[in-house]
């Protein structure tokens, strides 16, 4: 296991004060903090070999291309994928849109079902809706039980129809933390219809636990660099290269072509066919450094560390009067995004008072309105952890909740 105290020194921002209090960062599910190693790798790109990639014959271009392609290999190795199936995007959201426009829009039509779950982030809902306008398939949804789990009976019923051509599911909820049994679900979807594809939202799972795209049974896996110690502006699609080969391009422009005339173009091989224009070069290089950092720690260790925190957090919060933790209560079944409610207090007010205590938590619908609605809430307060968080942070969270209750409580809020 790694030593968190030592590792925290890699994150300059953790020394920061907020409103005169030390920052307690509990918003990693929104975006993670960035270690110096990542900043240095990006800096080195800009100060030593900044150039556009591919096609260049000069040394800088060659070095930049090598580093960019190295990053692709690193993503593939980290997720168990094939480098030819790794497409760099600007964020996870773009990766979903790529699959929506290039797969769903082309392959699904009237009578087909695109199955999502009620637990999905908007990134795994809205792109399907946008292309549905053109392609006319049906969208169905797996409900979430009171414990924050997928309702597998309904899932089986819908999948049993044989009409499901695309199943889009998150590996880990960004609101209630639920880890879904993706491998099992994927297996059932594929068994019911061998043309069906499974799109897995790894935005929360890839940063927080070991990932193997084959074991998951994912045809497409989407994730974001900025949630796994990397810079903003980089996401990734990890796909089966054979699928990419059969898909028409999504974004058009330089780099993704083989030949262009004014009227017509032929396209590059995969994955380049899907990377139009100057790619996110510095960002991919930063992401590779982030993956190196995670690999050095070991993803098993990251997960183990977080499981301890989650367990401690749930214990601590459920011990506070008036506090409810949403979703699975068992740390082994969930990730480190912990949404909770404080009776009689609105998340937005909680967030503001917490902020004054130096605590960065998130209040809102977390881009997952259908799920939040299913909790009977309009918003939740969410504390989310990562490898740099400590039991002290949980103690600070508890103090923050007490302070919030006191702030409103002394004034006798109903």
């Amino acid at each position, binding site marked *: 296991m790694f030593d968190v105290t030592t590792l925290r020194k890699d994150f300059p921002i953790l020394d920061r004060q907020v*409103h005169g209090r030390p920052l307690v960062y509990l918003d990693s599910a929104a975006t993670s903090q960035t270690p110096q190693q990542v900043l240095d790798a990006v800096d080195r790109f800009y100060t030593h070999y900044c150039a556009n990639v591919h096609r260049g014959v000069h040394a800088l271009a060659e070095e930049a291309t090598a580093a960019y392609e190295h990053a692709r290999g690193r993503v593939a190795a980290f997720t168990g994928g094939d480098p030819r199936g790794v497409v760099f995007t600007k964020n996870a959201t773009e990766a979903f849109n790529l699959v929506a426009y290039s797969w769903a829009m082309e392959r699904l039509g009237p009578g087909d079902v695109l199955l999502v779950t009620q637990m999905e982030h908007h990134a795994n809902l809205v792109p399907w809706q946008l292309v549905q306008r053109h392609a006319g398939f049906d969208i169905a949804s797996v409900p979430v039980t009171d414990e924050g789990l997928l309702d597998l009976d309904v899932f089986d019923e819908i999948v049993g129809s044989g009409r499901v051509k695309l199943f889009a599911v998150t590996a880990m909820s960004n609101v209630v933390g639920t880890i879904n049994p993706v491998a099992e679900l994927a297996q059932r979807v594929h068994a019911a219809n061998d043309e069906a594809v499974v799109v897995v939202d790894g935005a929360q799972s890839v940063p927080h636990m070991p990932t193997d795209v084959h074991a998951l049974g994912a045809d497409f896996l989407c994730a974001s660099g900025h949630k796994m110690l990397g810079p903003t502006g980089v996401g990734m699609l990890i796909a089966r290269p054979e699928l990419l080969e059969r898909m028409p391009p999504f974004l058009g422009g330089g780099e993704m072509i083989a030949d262009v005339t004014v009227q017509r173009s032929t396209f590059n091989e995969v994955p380049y066919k899907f990377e139009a224009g100057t790619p996110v070069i510095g960002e991919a290089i930063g992401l590779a450094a982030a993956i190196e950092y995670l690999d050095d720690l070991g993803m098993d260790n990251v997960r183990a560390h977080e499981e301890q925190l989650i367990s401690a957090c749930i214990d601590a919060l459920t011990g506070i009067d008036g506090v409810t933790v949403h979703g699975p209560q068992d740390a082994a079944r969930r990730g480190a995004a912990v949404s909770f409610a404080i009776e009689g207090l*609105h*998340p*937005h*007010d909680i967030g*503001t*008072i917490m902020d*004054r205590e130096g605590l960065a938590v998130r*209040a*809102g*619908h977390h881009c997952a*309105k259908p799920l*939040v609605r299913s909790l009977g*809430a*309009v*918003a939740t307060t969410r504390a989310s952890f990562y490898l740099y968080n400590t039991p002290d942070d949980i103690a600070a969270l508890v103090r923050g909740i007490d302070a919030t209750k006191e*702030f*409103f409580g002394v*004034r*006798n*809020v*109903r």
Partner: protein
Amino acid sequence: MTEDLYHDIILDHYRTPRNRAAELDGSHVHVHHNNPLCGDELDLRLRVDNGSIPTIDAVAYDGEGCSISMASASAMTEAVAGRDLADAEDLAQNFRAMMHGEPVEREDDLLDGIAFSGVAKFPVRVKCALLGWMALRDAISTFRDGQDSSRVVHEEPTL
């Protein structure tokens, strides 16, 4: 600085809402506003005395939301009851200016609304404080358009 936001007057309105009701007898217009950021939901009802100068005869709000949005709606109802529509709109404009940190001409007319001046320092909460006032403006124009209700989804905040 938290005290600038959660002024005692604000907490008082939150605790003891004024003109909070799910119905309003003989109301002429009902608007529903919803702000996805906070998850705020606000219903505002006006009864208008439609004389030569149409005047707000009675006003009621109801809803679910954070302390700032609910308290601001409460304070708003007190400030606008009995005012003619144009005057109420002007007052809403004053409140909006205050939220953007601009000087306010009608401090006194805002009544308890003035307690929200500190919210201007909390950009992400400005929309909360504005919710009731925006519903008011919308209710007035809905009434003027001859409609009796409207629904508005407030979009994401811009700083």
